[in-house]
């Protein structure tokens, strides 16, 4: 740290005119602090290991947990004795934050890595066909080369796409209502939406099954029916997150719009919603993420199919969750491997959707700038 400052000062001293301002280096963790951290960790692990060995215990999880607790206590005491109580509190708080982030991150990373390890070989070794073929030729006895996820991918995209189409406008309207209009009815709506958030997804599936699928007998199951069930799942999530987003649009902007003589609906349409656009995109992503992996509601309603079915309105349709579900429980080893491949495809699909939505959400700003310019220009030539 100090050497950086010194050299900057020296080079600046001779001629202020040619002086180049350089930012100071960021504060580095000095070796003492790192030593204390690693030392406490090693000491704790060693001590706990010793105790476990002497006592003849063999419990890896207990060992890890005890080491962790010992480490936190030891580290706190070390910092306290060396640097005082304030410093110790600061270090411990930092430690807790890091530990928390780590504990949250590990299972997530583990899931993704596990799916990658299991699924990547299947996807890679049958690369184009696994994505482009359908399952019509695949049976328990067939090799993996006969399997393909295209029917499932198309089904998922169509079902989730339709569900998004149905749920997003309703959800945004509802969120706007909850946010802009006070009264007893909005309380009722909010309560209903909240309890919908907690609805088990199988209930949504059953509901659509009884209401739409069952009365139509064999014509009942379809991608459309699945999308209705998914709509029920997406609606409360998108509504609640959209409401949170709309709530943080500053009241001063609403006042500014109203003070210009705007009716309330135009204020919402032209000021509130555009201001919240990026957040609304995030709300939609959350809803899609929820819907894309739902198995229970689509199981009843889409029915599953081994052949490609492009038409979401007629005939049973497959989708990735159903396909994975069926394959993982299949009696053949190849079926299970194909299931992992499907799981990987689902993860990749979700990832792609996320990135795409992010790009659309932030990219529209620059894109619409030119469109806005066109708006001004077009108005000009209007008679």
């Amino acid at each position, binding site marked *: 740290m100090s050497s950086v400052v010194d050299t900057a000062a020296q080079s600046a001293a001779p001629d202020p005119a040619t002086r180049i301002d350089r930012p100071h280096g960021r504060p580095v963790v000095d070796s003492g602090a790192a030593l204390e951290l690693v030392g406490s960790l090693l000491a704790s692990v060693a001590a706990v290991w010793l105790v476990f060995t002497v006592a003849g215990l063999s419990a890896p999880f207990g060992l890890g947990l005890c080491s962790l607790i010992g480490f936190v206590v030891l580290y706190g005491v070390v910092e306290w004795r060396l640097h005082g109580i304030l410093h110790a509190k600061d270090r411990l708080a930092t430690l807790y934050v890091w530990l928390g982030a780590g504990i949250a991150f590990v299972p997530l990373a583990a899931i993704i890595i596990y799916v990658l390890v299991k699924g990547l070989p299947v996807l890679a070794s049958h690369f184009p066909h696994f994505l482009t073929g359908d399952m019509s030729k695949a049976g328990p006895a067939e090799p993996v080369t006969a399997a393909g996820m295209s029917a499932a991918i198309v089904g998922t995209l169509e079902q989730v796409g339709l569900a998004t189409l149905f749920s997003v406008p309703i959800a945004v309207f509802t969120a706007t209502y909850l946010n802009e209009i*006070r009264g007893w009815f909005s309380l009722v709506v909010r309560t209903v939406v909240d309890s919908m958030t907690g609805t088990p997804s199988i209930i949504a599936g059953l509901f659509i099954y009884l209401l739409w699928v069952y009365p139509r007998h064999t014509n009942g199951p379809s991608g459309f029916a699945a999308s209705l069930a998914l709509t029920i799942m997406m609606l409360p999530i998108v509504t609640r997150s959209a409401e949170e987003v709309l709530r943080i649009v*500053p009241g*001063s*902007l609403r*006042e*500014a*719009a*109203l*003070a*210009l*003589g*705007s*009716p309330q609906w*135009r*204020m919402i349409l*032209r*000021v509130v919603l*555009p*201001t919240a*656009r990026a957040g609304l995109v995030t709300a939609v992503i959350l809803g899609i993420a929820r819907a894309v992996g739902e198995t229970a509601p689509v199981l009843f309603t889409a029915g599953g199919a081994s052949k490609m079915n492009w038409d979401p309105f007629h005939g049973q349709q497959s989708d990735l969750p159903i396909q994975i579900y069926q394959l993982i429980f299949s009696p053949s080893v190849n079926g299970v491997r194909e299931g992992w491949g499907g799981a990987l495809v689902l993860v990749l699909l979700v990832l792609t959707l996320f990135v795409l939505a992010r790009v659309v959400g932030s990219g529209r700003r620059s894109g619409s*700038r030119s469109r*806005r*310019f066109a*708006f*001004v*220009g077009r*108005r*000009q030539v*209007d008679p």
Partner: protein
Amino acid sequence: MTTVNQLGAPTDQFGSAANHGAGPPGPGMAPAGNTPARLEATDVSAWFGSNKVLERISLTMEPGKVTALIGPSGCGKSTFLRILNRMHELIPTAALSGSVALDGVDVYGPQLRVTETRLRVGMVFQRPNPFPSMTIAQNVLAGLRLSGTRVQNADDLVQECLERAGLWRETRNRLNESGVSLSGGQQQRLCIARSLAVRPRVLLMDEPCSALDPISTGVIEETIRKLCHDVTIVIVTHNMQQAQRVSHNCALFLLDGEGMPGHIVEAGPTTQVFDDPRDPRTADYVHGRFG
């Protein structure tokens, strides 16, 4: 308000910004109603819940003049200003009595819709609040779009309003940048331009310079002096020099004590209020001898 019935003024009397399309094209276009209006408050009292914050305020804001509202913090200047263009009623607990007349027509009466009132009585807020989702040009035109007014020669209108607000030279090459990319003082002038684009007949300004440096303040004061030929201006300010510099008339609001409603102690020509006040409290306040 009896004057309403006597005059029986139809809403058309106002000409109004809603007629842009009908006027002659070009920046100088002057729709029939593009003249400053007289704003008259009579016996206005206001409450927030059960808390009375204004006590029987009567004040005439003369057309083409700048009226300054001064007084200590919390005495109800902003509340009064917001009553003038019906922003007060947006607060759920707010209530009021008395009347406000725009050229003799009660703005709380049946002749004027609330959106029409706000279109004619524009407002500039204490903190600049351009719309972040819009460009500079769109911000200027926002009032027209929001009030559903068709506009020809949008580019000319943008230029005219930015010029009148003293912002044209700084923004002429960046009209398509976001409104929030401007500095605070520029944003405030953008908000003034935005208010002007709908051609209000009265412009309410609530401490428009409180967040600005002396140079931006000077620009805005210059703007106010130029504008007052076209639009009646009511300005709240804590700056006594500013009140003296820009206003023709001046009203001093005071509180009699903690929890008491604010009321007008003295109102009249600015020179008289500052140099020859009738009430000793006025002299104390304008010369900074007030607690």
